[in-house]
C-alpha cells in the first residue's frame, strides 16, 4: 500500500491540466431525459440542468478517473468510491455555452474505517468559468475514497 507521505507528495496541491468544453444542445437534452428532468426550454432562463457543473468537472478536469486512480497508487485490491460531492452554482450553465475548467487536487487524508481498513480520501477542487466572458459558473469539490485492500 502506498505510504501517505508519498500519496501527499504526488497529489496534494497538484494542478490538473483542466480543459475547455461545450454543452451541446443535444447532450443537454439527452441528460435531461436520463435525469428525469424537464427540458431546458421549460426553465425560466433556459438553463442547463445544474448537474452540468459535475459533468463539466468530470469531463474537464484534464485527467480521467482511471488516471486519477493511477496517481493515487490504486491497486487491483483497492476499491474506488465516490464519497462526497459539493456543487456551488454561481450562475446557471448555458445550453450551447463553452466553459473553461481548472482543477486542483487536495487535501489528501487517510482515515481508518470502523472495520479497521484504510481509507484514503482525495479531494479535487474544480472551478468552471465561461470561456467567452471568464465569469464563474460555479465550483465543484469531489471527494474520491480509495478503500485500500488487505495487501
Amino acid at each position, binding site marked *: 500500500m502506498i505510504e501517505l507521505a508519498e500519496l501527499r507528495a504526488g497529489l496534494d496541491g497538484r494542478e490538473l491540466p483542466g480543459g475547455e468544453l461545450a454543452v451541446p444542445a443535444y*447532450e443537454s437534452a*439527452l*441528460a435531461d*431525459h*436520463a*435525469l*428525469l*428532468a*424537464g427540458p431546458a426550454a421549460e*426553465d*425560466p*432562463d433556459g*438553463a*442547463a*440542468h*445544474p*448537474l452540468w457543473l*459535475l*459533468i463539466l468537472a*468530470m*469531463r474537464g478536469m484534464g485527467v*480521467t*478517473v*482511471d488516471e486519477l486512480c493511477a496517481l493515487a497508487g490504486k491497486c487491483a485490491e483497492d476499491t474506488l*468510491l*465516490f*464519497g*462526497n*460531492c*459539493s*456543487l*456551488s*452554482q454561481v*450562475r*446557471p450553465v448555458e445550453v450551447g455555452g463553452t466553459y473553461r475548467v481548472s482543477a486542483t487536487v487536495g487535501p489528501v487524508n487517510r482515515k481508518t474505517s470502523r472495520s479497521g481498513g484504510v481509507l484514503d480520501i482525495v479531494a479535487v477542487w474544480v472551478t468552471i468559468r465561461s470561456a467567452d466572458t471568464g465569469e464563474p459558473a460555479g465550483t465543484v469539490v469531489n471527494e474520491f475514497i480509495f478503500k485500500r485492500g488487505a495487501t
Partner: protein
Amino acid sequence: MSVVVGDALPGVRVAVVGADHIKIMALILRDPNPIHFDLAAVTAAGLGDREVNQGGVTMAYVINMLVGWTGSRAAVRELDCRFLANVFAGDEVVVGGTVLAVHPDGLVDCEVWADRGDGVRALTGRATVSLAL
C-alpha cells in the same frame, strides 16, 4: 412563497431507475466504469446483477426536487451530498428534504436525502436555494 423552519420539501419519487438512463449518463459523463453498463463487471465487482446508478445521478434527483420547489434551475445555489449506498437499475428512489433555516436575503438552507425503495438511505446532504429570484 411562505417558508418556515421545519417545512417538508415536496418530495419526488422515481418509480424505477432505468438501465438505459444509467447508460446514457455514462456517455454524458464520459464515465468508463463498466459497473454502469456491463452486468458481468457488476457481478465481478460483487455488486449483484443490476447496473449501478451514478452517484451524481441520484444527486440530480435531489436537484430535480429543489428545481420543482423553487421553479428555477438558477435557484439552486449550493448542494453538498454524501453518498451512503448504491442505487441500482430497477430501484425505486424517494427524495425528500426539510427546511433548516430561512435567511432574510431569501436564501433557504435545507437538509436533503434520497432513499431506496427498500428503505436504505443512499444519499444525505445539505442544500441552499434562493427563493428571492
